[in-house]
């Protein structure tokens, strides 16, 4: 029996490991910013300034940003670059045909990226984006001059390189199954960015926090309402239980 349990455990562990090896490095855990309005607002600013030129968020309306504590006037003054109507959705200015020429494809819509990129055993979509935004490195063999460890051979250049500076990954040789393979060890900063590595990570945490919020903007309300619903149901269940017991106590 013990052998059986052991073999089952091994089987599921192998299956899990095989799943995790879906291309790209293991994902870092993204910080949870869902309750930090300042971080979400900072993330929104980064998103509108750096991402929205090429990527749309076609299901997201600008005025929905009121939910993370911005006023309509603030949105109009600071974030409306691509439209003049605050009730519009976030559409990229990039022409899809040009995008095809430049990057080989149309940049994906980012409204739901923090949800759709989740993978069982690997992490949430937020973890993926957080890792992706922090693992660009220069690669002269690519058309854009950039490559990425989380998304090998990605078509997108490192848009945030001025903030992060240039880094190259370093590898160490490791023996695996009798072969020598190169395993990612860490990063070497080649040129400095305008942000320190810690500042850059924090900024990316805010940006990913914003993307997570945008993927599921009802999340905050959902959890708040959910607590009350469950509390109500607890009380209701207690009375339903006592009512049932009161009827059944005379049944012999």
């Amino acid at each position, binding site marked *: 029996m013990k052998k059986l349990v052991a073999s089952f455990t091994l089987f599921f562990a192998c299956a899990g490991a095989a799943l995790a090896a879906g291309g790209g490095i293991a994902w870092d855990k993204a910080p949870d910013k869902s309750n930090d309005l300042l971080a979400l607002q900072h993330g929104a600013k980064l998103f509108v300034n750096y991402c929205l030129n090429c990527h749309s968020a076609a299901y997201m309306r600008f005025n929905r940003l009121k939910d993370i504590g911005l006023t309509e006037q603030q949105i109009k003054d600071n974030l409306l670059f691509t439209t003049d109507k605050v009730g519009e959705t976030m559409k990229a200015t990039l022409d899809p045909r040009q995008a095809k020429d430049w990057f080989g494809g149309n940049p994906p819509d980012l*409204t739901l990226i923090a949800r*759709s990129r*989740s*993978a069982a055993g690997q992490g949430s979509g937020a973890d993926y984006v957080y890792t992706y935004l922090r693992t660009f490195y220069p690669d002269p063999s690519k058309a854009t001059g950039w490559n990425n460890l989380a998304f090998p051979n990605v078509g997108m250049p490192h848009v945030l390189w001025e903030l992060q500076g240039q880094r190259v990954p370093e590898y160490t040789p490791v023996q695996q199954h009798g072969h020598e393979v190169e395993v990612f060890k860490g990063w070497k900063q080649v040129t400095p960015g305008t942000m320190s590595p810690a500042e850059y990570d924090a900024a990316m945490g805010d940006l990913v926090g914003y993307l997570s919020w945008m993927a599921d903007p009802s999340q905050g309300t*959902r*959890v708040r309402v*959910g607590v009350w619903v469950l509390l109500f149901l607890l009380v209701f269940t207690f009375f*339903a239980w006592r009512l*049932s017991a009161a009827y059944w106590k005379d049944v012999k």
Partner: protein
Amino acid sequence: MAEMKEISPNAPAGARLLNWVDNRFPLSQLYNDHLGQYYAPKNLNFFYVFGALSILVLAIQIITGIFLVMHYKPDAALAFGSVEYIMRDVPWGWLIRYMHSTGASAFFIVVYMHMFRGLIYGSYRKPRELVWVFGCAIFLCLMAEAFMGYLLPWGQMSYWGAQVIVNLFAAVPFVGPDLALLIRGDYVVGDATLNRFFAFHVIAVPLVLLGLVAAHIIALHEVGSNNPDGVEIKATKGADGNPLDGIPFHPYYTVHDIFAASMFFMVFTAIIFFAPELGGYFLEYNNFIPADPLKTPLHIAPVWYFTPYYSMLRAITDEMMLVLIACIWGGALVAVFRGKLAVLFKIMILGAAVVVTAMMLSTDAKFWGVVVMGGAVVILFFLPWLDYSAVKSIRYRPSWHLYVYAIFVVNFIVLSYLGIQPPSAIGERISQVGTLYYFGFFLLMPWWSSMGDPKPVPSRVNFAPH
């Protein structure tokens, strides 16, 4: 036709109104037949709440469905966006949508539990065969309903899942490609498919489903509920003509079911409010990407409730076909050498085995995978005529029967798990063994269910007052 009943003009207004209605519509009679004077066994246990819960979930699905249709657009260009519109811009739209998506999975959970209850307590045995058959038809409708509903959000998994399943029909010999074309209404899954699935999902299948639910309940209330002891309570009646071991459904089981419903709602709302995707099982992550006919996802998995059947489909490989042929010949030879049958009948059996073998060798294994997948559901209909046990309930079956059922349940769960996973060599072997067990459980039931000595069945139900 009943006589016109007179009531004193001095009676309270309510009584007079009821009398007026009763003379024109059997309201009091319906109430008494199905609630007030419907006697259910008093020893029903935990497993008996899932029937009422399925009705509850059905109501949730219909009501939330109505509100979703008010904002949803069945158009390949607009469908995905309209679901996101519901999630973001429709007031409380996210709640309605999460209730509907969680409700789909909840439906299968309560129905699987309900079927399991029927299975272990022999609720399909005489005189409840039709209750079971209607129930199986409901299950079939539910699968069609879930499958077609899943296309509507028009995400990647919606699209490719539908593509895979509709292509299965193309494996049918001769008419397959035309059949698939008929279902899709196009050469690929597209706008035409979305529109017809929408029509089926919101009106055609629900109509059939509601009719079947009515038939299921009418048949049940005609024969009366079974119970964990499998004892017929109608056999022992009191002086008033009511079963001694029975108790009026209302109020006893209504208060009981309200309690069960509130427990159910705690789990249901916890998922809706705190984990609506349930780790990718209730809402698949890939389905948050709009359908793209040019980009096939790496791994296409059906939603969890279809995965046991999907596993069985994948288990049918060319190798497995040889095993199935061996099973057919094994069965045929046993019938010929051991069965007490007329010679002509034995020759017919051998002839049938030859024909089936020839068909299996000449058609693609994929088609037989489809046959096995469909057969796994269809075989449930025949359960009442496969069980030869002298007793109904697992409680009085020979003790080792319990293990047969336990392995059946574990097997079903393992098959579900494997159906979610990407194909693997070891997974394929396990699901092949699992498929054989699943079908062996049913097809060999006439033999194994009559083996062993059943325990004595009491004449009255076991009931501990609580």
